[in-house]
């Protein structure tokens, strides 16, 4: 849709009541989350327990970090379907490389650090590949990333001979704190998640690059006429996405210590859904990282509540999930684009 349209339909700030309505809509996902948490605490006594909350936050970190990357891509008007497959691939390759290297590096934190760096590089490189194909090859993002989604997963399946690739047991102990460790009582993944969210929000909102990302998504031609390096910025969003996948994978691997062909299945849908639930526009132009974080938590808590209460037939979990997602977005329908 043409963006200019927004002007005429959306309308000039206006009265206090309108402003309140706007603020309400802007806070939509947050309200949905709060609402969900109230429901959760009413339905299950263990819901508000520190441990349960910590569990949900911690496991949300993985999709969350990926979704933060997706916020950049989508804000710039792009799309990346390959994230789930990519994280499977990164996990698998990183584990293989680390297992190989135990001979020369030992099994200490040094190798773990090397593995982390390797994962980030691999993720970023894959993101660069996606971005370059889309921007320079001028192929629709949907197609390119649908393609690499198949390619990445296939490569992993091939490397793992269809089975799982497991981290060396000695290495597991060194890596374990990355998922299970706590700092001041708060789990490491939560720290990483928060740190990345804060950085990303700042980058998106306070830096020139972030400005350009939004401008490109808002209207690519505007950006072009303002002498913004459009291609470079667009490719960079995919690199950031890849990097985020790399980071998420670093957190994922120590959790179960293995990559399997089913690792990361459907993560792309979850990530995109989180971004959109959070209020970022699917067509691009406007993105907010905090919204994405809230979106991820909404999804995380929905399934947590379903597991904790279990009063619905497990067959219907998907229906409840689907319905809640739609309702959460209905709360902020101003931004709708159909």
């Amino acid at each position: 849709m043409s963006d200019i349209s927004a002007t005429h339909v959306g309308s000039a700030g206006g009265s206090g009541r309108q402003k309140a309505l706007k603020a309400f809509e802007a806070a939509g996902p947050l309200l949905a989350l709060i609402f969900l948490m109230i429901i959760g605490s009413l339905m299950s006594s263990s819901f508000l327990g520190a441990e349960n909350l910590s569990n949900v936050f911690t496991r949300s970190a993985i999709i969350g970090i990926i979704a933060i990357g997706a916020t950049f891509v989508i804000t710039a008007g792009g799309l990346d379907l390959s994230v789930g497959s990519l994280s499977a691939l990164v996990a698998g390759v990183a584990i293989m490389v680390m297992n190989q290297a135990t001979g020369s590096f030992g099994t200490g934190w040094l190798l773990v650090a090397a593995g982390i760096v390797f994962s980030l590089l691999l993720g970023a490189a894959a993101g660069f590949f996606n971005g370059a194909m889309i921007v320079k090859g001028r192929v629709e993002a949907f197609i390119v990333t649908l393609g690499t989604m198949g390619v990445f997963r296939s490569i992993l399946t091939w490397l793992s001979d269809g089975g799982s690739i497991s981290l060396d047991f000695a290495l597991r102990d060194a890596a374990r704190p990355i998922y299970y460790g706590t700092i001041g009582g708060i789990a490491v993944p939560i720290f990483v998640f928060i740190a990345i969210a804060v950085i990303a929000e700042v980058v998106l909102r306070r830096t020139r690059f972030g400005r350009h990302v939004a401008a490109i998504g808002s209207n690519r031609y505007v950006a072009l006429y303002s002498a913004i390096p459009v291609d470079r910025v667009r490719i960079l969003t995919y690199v950031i996405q890849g990097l985020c996948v790399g980071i998420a994978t670093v957190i994922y691997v120590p959790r179960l210590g293995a990559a399997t062909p089913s690792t990361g299945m459907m993560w792309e849908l979850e990530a995109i859904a989180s971004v959109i639930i959070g209020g970022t526009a699917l067509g691009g132009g406007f993105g907010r990282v905090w919204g994405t974080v809230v979106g991820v938590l909404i999804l995380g808590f929905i399934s947590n509540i379903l597991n904790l209460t279990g009063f619905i037939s497990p067959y219907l979990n998907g229906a409840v999930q689907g319905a809640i997602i739609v309702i959460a977005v209905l709360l902020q329908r101003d931004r709708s684009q159909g």
Partner: protein
Amino acid sequence: ADATIGISIPAADHGWTGGLVYHTKRTVEAMKKAFPNIDFVVVTSSSATQQVNDIEDLMSRKINALVVLPQESDPLTEPVKAAKAKGVFVTVVDRGLAEKNIEDLYVGGDNPQYGVAAAEYFKKKFPDGGKIVVMRGIPTAIDNIRIEAFQNALKDSKIEILDMQYANWNPDKGFEVMQDYLQRFPKIDGVWAGDDDAALGAMEAIKQTDRKGVKVLGGSGMNKVIKLVQDGNDMVDADIFYPPTLIIPAIELTTMKFATQAPINGRYVLGSPLITKDNAAQYYFPDAPY
């Protein structure tokens, strides 16, 4: 070639099927070497619909025999029947078809027995009753059969099933569901994860808490889990045998049929015995990916 054998199996989308594809490949390679005048074509499918397509494609290649591990029993019945009608030798593996007597040869595990074995394990572990949680697999007929048998076998015991949720035979989902079960139920004596992949996830979730003495039972015989059993892990002290290796005799027997003209048909059902520390060694294949 004297004969072409088509093999249609599910794609490697979770651990067990991964192992299946691995063993299929290995067996085919071995058979090719042993019987150079027999051709093999392997196709893998990610859904029942695709598997039907694949079988059609195999028929186009004029195969003489079809070894098929159906994604789903009902949807594959018609297409396999159609293949049979064209005179192809049919070997069905693992999941039976919805109609009897279509296949020439059946090689399979015993799915009801799988559920019963699990139930027996818990009955023996908790003779005075216990509270267990269950993870179901992917919503399919096999999962239903196993769960039903499991529940029936527990009917006359004092064991209470607290809840059942789908974990899709997936370690990540197993981890998540277990974490939530642990929050929800202050006392859990045992977990039937339904599958070794999910069991691994459940184990990590339990390890993370300070709960002691929770028994985790998976199933299917993943080498990693059998190793744990063998090493006397106190959380996982048993497993149910239901290995993807059952594709091996299926392929071998079908090959024999063409290589040697040996009369081959009938049913070959692997039991689903409980693997414990005592007998673990005989089920342990350290080199398999699964």
